[in-house]
């Protein structure tokens, strides 16, 4: 197990290095380069030259790249041009909101999606199956931000069941411990704050869950259908094993393997979706910050975010691989 983790961590290095080269090249390709990003479009040539010298942009490219890498290792991602604060601090401040939202969304997707996909496969052709399949098709085809708007318009603005924006209501004075609003309330015993945070989480999480949910339903269904036709399932059934045992140990355990991989691969689209949902619900996480950074052309933030996301993505997929090998002994042997 340790060897697997170590090997996967080593494989990370070339990936991240490659990404950093791409990002570095990208930064250099930006219209007018970093100088005009700092000075704005109306900078004179003398000013640009001065900034270029100050930033070391007149040095050879590989020297610049070396400095870029060094700064990344020191977690120095530059300062946001919008807020004037270090990018790293802006991220750590907003990270909990996005994690909370993403975890809630993926939890909804798994808790609803796996049973739905499983029963759709078991009762192939039934109304449940038809609903699950067409529902998941629709889930993929609805633009996330439109779904978010619809949910907000219907359940927040018109019906008033859920709050329409933010993470906590204004009247609630919650103590901040971890930054995760739901968890903080539980830790400090402020259950009203926790409940308020949960209510704020429902709509954005449902909107964000739409694509992962659709993918998980389809994956689970296809995978269960395949496993149900396998010889070992028939063998298990014909030797008189209890049906529940066959379903849990033979069908589900094997069918869930590709689903687990899919969950890992969904991280990227989840974070894309977070940018869209968070801005519809003014959720105050990284996603919303990225949205304003796009408007403001805040490149240090965008570069930092891309690096950050790549790291998160790779780490989550590492976790998925480990989880995979825990469930599937065949992987461990190889």
């Amino acid at each position, binding site marked *: 197990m340790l060897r697997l983790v170590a090997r996967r961590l080593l494989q990370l290095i070339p*990936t991240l290095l490659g990404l950093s080269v791409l990002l570095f090249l990208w930064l250099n390709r930006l219209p007018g380069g970093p100088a005009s990003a700092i000075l704005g479009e109306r900078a004179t040539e003398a000013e640009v030259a001065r900034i270029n010298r100050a930033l070391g942009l007149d040095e050879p490219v590989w020297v610049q790249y070396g400095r870029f890498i060094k700064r990344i290792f020191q977690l120095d991602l530059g300062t946001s041009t919008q807020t004037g604060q270090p990018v790293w601090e802006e991220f750590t401040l907003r990270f909990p909101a996005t994690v909370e939202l993403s975890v809630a969304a993926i939890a909804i997707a798994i808790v609803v999606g796996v049973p739905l996909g499983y029963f759709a496969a078991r009762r192939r052709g039934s109304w449940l199956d038809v609903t699950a399949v067409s529902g998941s098709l*629709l889930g993929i*085809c609805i633009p996330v931000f439109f779904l978010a708007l619809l949910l907000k*318009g219907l359940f927040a603005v018109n019906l008033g069941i859920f709050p329409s924006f933010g993470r906590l209501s204004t009247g609630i004075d919650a103590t901040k411990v971890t930054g995760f609003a739901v968890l903080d309330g539980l830790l400090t015993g402020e259950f009203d704050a926790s409940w308020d945070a949960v209510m704020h989480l429902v709509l954005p999480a449902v909107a964000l869950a739409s694509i992962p949910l659709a993918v998980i339903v389809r994956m689970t269904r296809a995978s269960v259908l395949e496993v149900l036709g396998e010889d070992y399932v028939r063998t298990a059934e014909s030797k008189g094993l209890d049906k529940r045992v066959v379903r849990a140990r033979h069908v589900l355990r094997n069918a869930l393997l590709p689903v687990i991989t899919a969950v890992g691969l969904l991280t990227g689209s989840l974070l*894309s979706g977070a940018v*869209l949902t968070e801005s519809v619900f003014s959720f105050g996480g990284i996603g919303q910050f990225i949205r304003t950074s796009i408007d403001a*052309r805040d490149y240090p933030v965008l570069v930092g*975010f891309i690096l950050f996301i790549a790291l998160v993505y790779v780490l989550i997929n590492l976790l998925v691989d480990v989880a995979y090998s825990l469930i599937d002994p065949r992987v461990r042997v190889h």
Partner: protein
Amino acid sequence: MNATPGLQKKADKIDRLAQLMERTETTSGAGLWREAFRRLRTSKTAIIGGVVIGVFVLVAIVGPWLAPYSPTAQDWRGEVFPNQGRFVGPRGENWFGLDHLGRDEFSRMLVGARQTLLVGVVSMLIGLVAGAVIGAVSGAAATLGGEPGKRLDTVIMRVTDIILALPSLLLAVSVAAVLGQSLTTVMIAVGVVQVPVFARLLRGSMLAQGSSDYVLAAKAVGIRKRRIVLTQIMPNSLSPVIVQATLSLATAIIEAAALSYLGLGNPDPAIPEWGVMLSQAQRFFDNAPMMSVYPAVGIIVTALGFTLLGEAMREALDPKLRG
């Protein structure tokens, strides 16, 4: 009617037998594609998807001539006050009502279909062509290039994996940042996102073909490697790519709408496009939800059409499902 039940049963049996025989007749000599097409014609999913796409393409072609009014003329400007929340809904003159600048929404939907189709098709083609070239090189190197080929394949795949790891939206934002804001940017940005998908798919498919008997036979006969790749492996590896191309049209249209929502869309207000229309209308969602619903439904239905057809094609081409 006057046939006895026994005879009826017999007739049914013969009918079924004929069906079965007809089936073997067509499948025995027919290629993968002909067989797939035959299956497509009987698939409900494919028919629904095909009809939706057909209508969409038709509207994209003739829409501008069907539109009752100019999509850009603000003919009813004096009737719409977005700041006060006053909008005009559907009425006799304007079937879909007016947009926030007093333009006829129905005409804009009709004219906008063309631009939406264009964005979808061009971005898909960008992803397809670039991805296919990369995937073909990688796949050819891995199957026939020996040790150095395998190494080249690893390098190429690592690079595409990096791009695959990035959230598509951010990748698109990065491209848009370099190229500036325009319709071309949107198409390139959405296309770039698809490149690693197509590359991985074609390579994977070529690898699967590379170990098959006919490639081995071709190698044994001494056919040149380039020729094996171009005439043997490639044509047999294309079907998943074509399926993906259909599915990509759906994602491209949705992705373009998301880019518009993020303010990176086509800045030219003269050309209506559903994604841009949706992102403009969403600001007035609380007062005039229907203004968002029209373009949104357009996008969803079109995306559904492409997805349905793509799924049906995937099923039709799946050798596991062939009779």
